[in-house]
């Protein structure tokens, strides 16, 4: 069975959720599939709290990916700067990336893998620097911190549960992975 059949099947099973626009209009030029953990965050059942504000903005950021917008990509692990919107993580052969949703505080990182070019499978979410009551996961801390490795491992594990025997898509160049990728 191809990976495409696999992710389609996971959606049918209700184990992955397909993101769409909260307000219709734009074309869906990429695909965002979400684990229940991510789907719950961006589902729109937001309370009038910091959590509601933050998750609403996270949803808008994921919809930006969905829309096919140009994205500033950190292609070399550990070289991420404030302005990168998504980043490839070490080890690159594992195919784990993160969405950097940085503003406002608390900054969040959504860990994801690509099933195919432009097909994001968003699996886990961690706060970047400060503990967040509505996320079970601890803050990631500095880049060298073990919690980063743990978060990457958890993302890989979630992928393995959903797609046993399949590896995430790993491209040679940014354009192999994401259309309209901007590297600087």
């Amino acid at each position, binding site marked *: 069975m191809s990976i495409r*059949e696999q992710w389609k099947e996971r959606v049918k099973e209700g184990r992955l959720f397909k993101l769409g626009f909260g307000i219709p209009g734009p074309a869906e030029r990429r695909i965002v599939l979400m684990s229940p953990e991510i789907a719950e965050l961006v589902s729109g059942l937001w309370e009038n709290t910091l959590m509601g504000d933050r998750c609403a903005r996270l949803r808008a950021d994921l919809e930006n990916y969905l829309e096919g917008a140009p994205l500033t990509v950190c292609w070399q692990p550990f070289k991420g700067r404030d302005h990168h919107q998504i980043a490839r993580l070490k080890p690159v052969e594992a195919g784990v990336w993160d969405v950097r949703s940085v503003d406002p505080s608390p900054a969040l990182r959504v860990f994801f893998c690509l099933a*195919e070019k432009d097909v994001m499978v968003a699996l886990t979410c961690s706060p970047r620097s400060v503990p967040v009551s509505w996320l079970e996961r601890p803050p990631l801390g500095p880049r060298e911190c073990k919690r980063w490795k743990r978060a990457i491992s958890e993302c890989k594990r979630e992928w393995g549960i959903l797609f046993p025997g399949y590896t995430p*898509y790993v491209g040679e160049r940014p354009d192999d992975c994401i259309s309209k990728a901007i590297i600087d």
Partner: protein
Amino acid sequence: MTVSPRPLLTEIAAGHSGAPIPPAKLAYIQQRLRNRMFNFLLEKFLEGQRAGLTKAALARRIGKTPDLVNRWLGAPSNLTLDTISDLLIGMAAQELVPNSSSPLHQVEHNYSHYADLASRSEHSAPTQSLGFAQGAAASLMAQPSSQRVGGEAAALSLASSSNSWRRQVGAI
């Protein structure tokens, strides 16, 4: 197809005497605007780049440091009305002309990459990395529009709505 206001838009559609619009929904709309404005400027810069524009040249033109220009063109949160004005005039000799439209009654776009991939076999898709099963060229059924986000009822595409949690996730 014109869709009626969905739960996200309930308060927005309520008119001047309606209930307060929840802060999270305001934040969602704000972030959409930030992203949209950022994408607009980034596209302008890429257009200029194809015609030889560099960040250094742009910085010189508008009297800023390259580092500052890099930051402005790096993330949606770094923009203000003044920086938008400077960038646009420097990159394209243009100024922003305000316009707006209502999120109510938006028409759903008829292109979905999801439906597109679903209708094509994987033979015509980008090459997979090693480890992916290749052979079967299944013709996958496109999901009905009523199940797509952007469809009237659900913000998330729920292939199965057999439990209450999934039904909850559908609401935005």
